């Protein structure tokens, strides 16, 4: 099958490569770019393990062709670590509040939560539960994930206030 040239910004870095028109973004990220944070749990848009951030929106990369997002700005969980290599706020709060067990859903969860907190910096528990409903977790029962996101919101607010 003939390949097309794609160009993306992933976690702040310009990348390019060749992909078939049918190549799914998740496979391009994982197999061509070796960005294996986003996972595959269903390939049918149900589980959210493959969630990435594309131009400011949460997107399930298992049902997106890489061809559809040519030139896009993509963030994966790898891009949410601080520049000095320390854990970002959400990553730290997931750890602090035991918001993960097997860790398979975690990259998608954190990436989705990152966008949720941009959309709504002051979410109620209900907002979080509703906003995270596209991401399945089989291990945690969500209670600690909700806690972790809520704590992240507080911490981000505090950081913002301190900066102002």
């Amino acid at each position, binding site marked *: 099958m003939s390949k097309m040239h794609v160009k993306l910004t992933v976690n702040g870095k310009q990348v390019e490569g060749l992909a*078939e028109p*049918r*190549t799914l973004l998740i*496979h391009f990220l*994982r*197999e061509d770019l*070796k*960005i*294996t*944070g*986003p*996972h*595959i*749990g*269903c*390939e*049918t848009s*149900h*589980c959210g*393990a493959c969630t990435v951030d594309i131009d400011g929106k949460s997107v399930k990369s298992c049902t997106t062709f890489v061809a559809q997002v040519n030139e896009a700005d993509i963030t*994966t*969980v*790898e891009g*949410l*670590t601080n520049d000095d290599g320390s*854990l970002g706020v*959400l*990553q*730290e709060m*997931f*750890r*602090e509040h*035991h918001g*993960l*067990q*097997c*860790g*398979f*859903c*975690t*990259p998608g969860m*954190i990436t989705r939560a990152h966008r949720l907190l941009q959309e709504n910096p002051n979410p109620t528990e209900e907002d*979080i*539960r*509703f906003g*995270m*409903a*596209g*991401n*399945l*977790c*089989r*291990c*945690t*029962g*969500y*209670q*600690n*994930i*909700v806690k972790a996101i809520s704590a992240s919101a507080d911490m981000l607010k505090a950081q913002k206030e301190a900066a102002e």
Partner: protein
Amino acid sequence: MNDQTMTPEERAANLKGMGCARKRVEDVRFTQGKGNYVDDIKLDGMLFGAFVRSPYAHARVVSVNKDAALAVPGVVAVLTAEDLAPLGLHWMPTLAGDKQMVLADGKVLFQGQEVAYVVAENRYIAADAAELVDVEYEELPVLTDPFEALKSDVVLREDLAGQTEGAHGPRKHHNHIFTWEQGDKDATEAVLGEADVVAEEMVYYHRTHPCPLETCGCVASMDKVTGKLTLYGTFQAPHAIRTVVSLISGLAEHNIRVISPDIGGGFGNKVGAYAGYVCSVVASIVTGQPVKWVENRMENLMSTAFARDYWMRGKIAATKAGKITGLWCHTTADHGGFDACADPTKFPAGFMNICTGSYDIPVAYLAVDGVYTNKAPGGVAYRCSFRVTEAAYFIERMIEVLAIKLNMDAAELRRINFIKAEQFPYQSALGWEYDSGDYHTAWDKALKAVDYEGLRAEQAQRIEDFKAGKTRKLLGIGLTHFTEIVGAGPVKNCDILGLGMFDSCEIRIHPTGSAIARLGTISQGQGHATTFAQIIASEIGLPADDITLEEGDTDTAPYGLGTYGSRSTPVAGAATAMAARKIRPKAQMIAAYLLEVHDNDVEWDVDRFAVKGAPERFKTMKEIAFAAYNQAIPGLEPGLEAVSYYDPPNMTYPFGAYICVMEIDVDTGEWEVRQFYALDDCGTRINPMIIEGQVHGGVTEALAIAMGQEIAYDEMGNVKTGTLMDFFIPTAWETPNYTTDHTVTPSPHHPIGAKGVGESPNVGGVPAFSNAVHDAFRPFGLVQSHMPHDHWRIWKIANGLGMHG
């Protein structure tokens, strides 16, 4: 910090040992997307395998034509049973003493069965080519009902024709697998015949699936130069897989290295040996290249592992006052096309004989008939210790049914029948020795915590309001007191394929006082690297943060039977404590030598040995570790390490009291969990944070199972629930918050008193949710209704009871 001025408590806290809510060491990599799961593995020249699967549940395979598939550029091989037959690998032994086709040999027995295996340069080409394999089928009559199967002339397993003796005794019919009997049939029937009251019911625990977020997969890599096979995979039991691969492939066991990398949840799904593993190994041997196989979600739900599917007919006898006098159970177990259930060899129905539950029942009888049908094989313990979930659901439903018959409060009925604290160790009528328990204390604590009386009063008011037309919502109070049996198990009665179910730990202390421990188990999210280091920290006084834990590499870890059935803490956790305790005597000798006193003149003190009566004279474990490597101590070898293979003397018996309060809309069938209280007694608590996390997750899986999750088939044997669209997994939106609580009754025979907790919430959660639904409708005449209680089925209950006017 000064070692001499810190109090023992401060020193103990620094260790982050047992009882500490230590943060998980695993999370640093997982939260950054730096886990290493099987699909993350990429080897040079790696090929990708994909299956051609049967669309039919029962059919003859007339022909398989590979030509078109082989013509696709990038396709390397297409394997069928014919290719595997010369190697003797077209069939493989199952864990249950049966055998199973690796690739369809003449016929298929369930939808989704593996027919051919395509190997190609990448997953896209493999999928394309799989479509092009042309298989001609001749459809056969399909049997999806186990009761029908036992009467039908249709022979499912033609390969067993004429065999009247199976792995577990006589076969009564060509679709019958085994009968397993426990307890005293005559005595139980006599009690039933004379009882004041007998309640009888059919309790069905539907077929479901563990469905971890990561599906099963492997990478097989045969190095033709060294003759060594490396097999990475999602294995809950890597050592057992190595032995199985050796036995069936003929490769010497030392030439096989099995590695379980990070595993994205298991819940039993990843215990078994699957066709994908065998085909990948063969493909790698044939091609000389690494071969990856990862099933997709639909394949996962259709073919690897299912759970439950038990039809449990029960009779429970009692006095008028509610004292239970006997229990009878006959179970029809639907095992699918092959008996590939993962149970200890001598237990073809697992530990179903724990079905007397938390109650002092003088006589009991259990019989289980295993049956072949045209459904997927597997029969794993989905977050369960070998059919304990089925047993707990059965008895907790039978108690409720009996309460209805006696017109009694179900909490009180439980209370008057609990095994009393002073009766432990308790010998059950079906053959177990319960190690410890204090059920009354737990029960009273639970009822008080939820204000049980208050809830019943509210419910009574609700019923009046409902009858007066003021509300269309009912209130259900779901009670459960479960007793589990976990930690398989004593080698004298528990083995898998002849491998005794011990487990192991090896600890090596490094000269600078840090350590590495390796275990025969493998974490799938339970946080072993965190908790087992805590056990070692408490036992040998080195900080948990200085202890690395490794599992899952059979070349380095000691042999063990793996992680499932809540056995890691009861068995490997015990091995960890015992290995640490083997290190201590040598450490004591070294300390005594350094302090120039007699061995018996020093005593253990948190993280050091101190001279008796002179605590200021001591050697810390760190100092002792260094001395072990740099001093020539007369009579002692250098080094400081130990290994323990622990064969537990008994199982452990965690228990708990769960209460669910549920609102149910009779017009829509919608439910809402208003409150869920979970009290667990798992003995000594190693890390309360992780225990709580296990409970949250397990109860959520229970919520799914009880309220909507199922593997359903139509009469043609088509799987109706093959995607996450149809197979219910609760999201954050419908999952409630849980209140957790505990009592602590340490196991008397476990070195640290721990009992295991991972599965308790699933065992106790399902009856709690189901009982809540039943309880809501009890005043309107409902006695028994089968799970899952999805909106449609709840609506049907209400409709059947004439509640829709």
